[in-house]
């Protein structure tokens, strides 16, 4: 049995197609990531999987339960952390946790072992109102609230958005420990660099899954060599590279520009080096973000062709 199984999931809002016939499976005990920007359909998907939305077409199961028919069972066995940490700002840290424990017919004491690792970070502030916590602390409290009823599967919708890198790192470390205890974890994020922390990822863009595999395999999806040039003003290099019709997939990456060359690469490099001084050009391994850029660009081009 899969932790999650989805067949041709479709969700529409009026004129907008939020999900275009998604198919995927997530193994039990796996850490699976949906990676993509706002509007990719991540939140709609998570809401369908947690039984909060009904898909317009297709079906999905969570640990064997149908997300429409068996919503009561799904709500018992899954822990869900919605996009905006849904905490009550006027309740204290402890009161929030107590509340979520009580609605699942349990208590903090009974399941303390589930949240100890995470809750112990914020326990010193348990009398503080949740509204006055820092982003990282809110995130930990929200995770504790999602875990307090001993779920078998966790759905975390953008748990790290807007949180500082230190808390983000701590958060991923906590997830890794939870995974070791056998929990299936489904997580979404807009940060491409977080992909490597998942066993498998699905790259989402405008309601489609562009690619689905392990982060390592996804990085191999770029055909041909990828080059990175640095040394001058990014914008100048960018414009210069665009003057070559043999250069394509030209994207700035901070102070570097990544690009591909069809045909004689060395000739192009020589011209770049003549134009700018102190330039370094190296071949690089594509990152998940590179792949995302290439695949999403291709989708847009296909759409333009379709629209004439």
């Amino acid at each position, binding site marked *: 049995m899969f932790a999650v199984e989805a067949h041709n999931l479709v969700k529409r809002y009026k004129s907008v197609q939020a999900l275009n016939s998604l198919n995927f499976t997530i193994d039990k005990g796996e850490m699976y990531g949906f990676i993509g920007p706002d509007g990719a359909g991540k939140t709609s998907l998570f809401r369908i999987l947690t039984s909060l*939305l009904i898909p317009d077409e297709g079906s999905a199961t969570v640990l064997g339960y149908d997300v429409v028919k068996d919503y009561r069972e799904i*709500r018992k066995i899954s822990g869900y952390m919605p996009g905006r940490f849904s905490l009550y700002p006027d309740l204290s840290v402890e009161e929030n946790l*107590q509340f*979520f424990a009580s*609605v*699942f017919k349990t208590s903090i004491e009974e399941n303390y072992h589930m949240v100890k690792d995470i809750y112990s970070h914020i326990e010193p502030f348990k009398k503080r109102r949740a509204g006055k916590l820092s982003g990282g602390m809110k995130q930990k409290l929200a995770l504790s609230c999602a875990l307090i009823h001993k779920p078998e599967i966790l759905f975390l919708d953008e748990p790290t958005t807007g949180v500082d890198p230190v808390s983000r790192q701590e958060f991923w470390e906590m997830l890794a420990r939870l995974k070791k205890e056998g929990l299936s974890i489904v997580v979404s994020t807009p940060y491409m660099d977080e992909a490597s922390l998942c066993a498998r990822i699905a790259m989402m863009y405008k309601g489609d899954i562009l690619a689905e595999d392990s982060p390592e395999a996804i990085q191999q999806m770029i055909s041909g060599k990828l080059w990175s040039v640095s040394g001058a003003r990014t914008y100048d290099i960018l414009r210069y590279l665009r003057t070559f019709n043999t250069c394509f997939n030209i994207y700035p990456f901070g102070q570097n520009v990544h690009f591909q060359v069809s045909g004689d690469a060395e000739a192009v490099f020589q011209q770049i080096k003549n134009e700018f001084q102190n330039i370094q050009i190296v071949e690089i391994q594509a990152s998940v973000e590179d792949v995302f850029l290439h695949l999403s660009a291709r989708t847009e081009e296909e759409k333009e062709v379709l629209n004439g």
Partner: protein
Amino acid sequence: MKQFLGFFRKELIHIIRDVRSLLILLLIPFLMMLIFGYAINMDLKNAGIAVMDLSGDDMTHEITDKLLSSGYFELQDVITDPGRAEELFKAGKVKEILVFEQDFARKFHSEGIAKVQILTDASDPNNANMLVNYTNGIIANYLLQQQVSQFLPLQVQSSFRYNENLESVYMFVPGLIALLVMLISTMMTSISITREKESGTMEAILVSPLKPWQIVLGKVAPYAFIALSNLAVILLMGTFVFGVPYRGSIALLLGLCVLFILMALSLGILISTISSNQLMAMMISMVGLLLPTILLSGYIFPIDNMPVWLQTISSAFPARYFITALKAVMLKGLRFMYIWKEILVIFGMMMFFLIVSIKKFKIRLD
């Protein structure tokens, strides 16, 4: 049960932590009672009048004395020139002018007909109407006393039952209860539910095994308490400060109020299920309910004076039945037998709102 208690506890904390709103909710009944009881007084008291007595005999003096000793009128001016009347009205000091014709007493005794003219400032028509009625009443009374010995084919005797002094505070107590119960039960409940939708916490609650009735009841219960406490304040202030009599059975009175509170809470839940945010919930409660409650329930304007189509509309608002029934119990001391129809209507409305809202209460987000 444990789930429900946990939910209830959380709701109580929300209400208690929001000290400002809580204070407002608890103080509103005091303030409203004071405002309606003292400031907005629809009774006639010391209305300024002027007299133009062209006769100046015993009879006109006696009538004038009667009017002034009634407490409703206060003599501002005595005039002889009809042109002054206009000036006085314009200055706003005088609301009514009494004109006795020449040889008033003589004509009355010899011809049986004497004329007195009443001029009123009708820029406030309700008030003008009342002045004329009061004046007529007092003159009629005087004539009765004059003619006890004489033969009269028809005698009109008027008496104001159930509110002998025409105290408007009697009227306001039932209306105020209706208004505040609607305000607190309906508006606050609908706002408190929609707030969770807006803040995103509804998502977390919905994915829990909580059942709709547990969520709804947990939301409603604390506001039921506040509404009850307000009810107590209004009723107690009514008797002890304004001397409103409770002539009927107290149990029936309380039962009626509790039923109305439950109806209002159900309505609040219904509003919350159809509105997606707090603003919308508030607009529906305010514009859709509070205003009609004030305007159409017979609280300010008598229903019988409304055109038929407005009367029909007013029958859709629960407050109308509540106010009718409450007045009947409070002021007339009527028993259940006489108000069962109203009670049935309110109960029916409550059940309707409750069933629709539990049916409509979404276990999902869309």
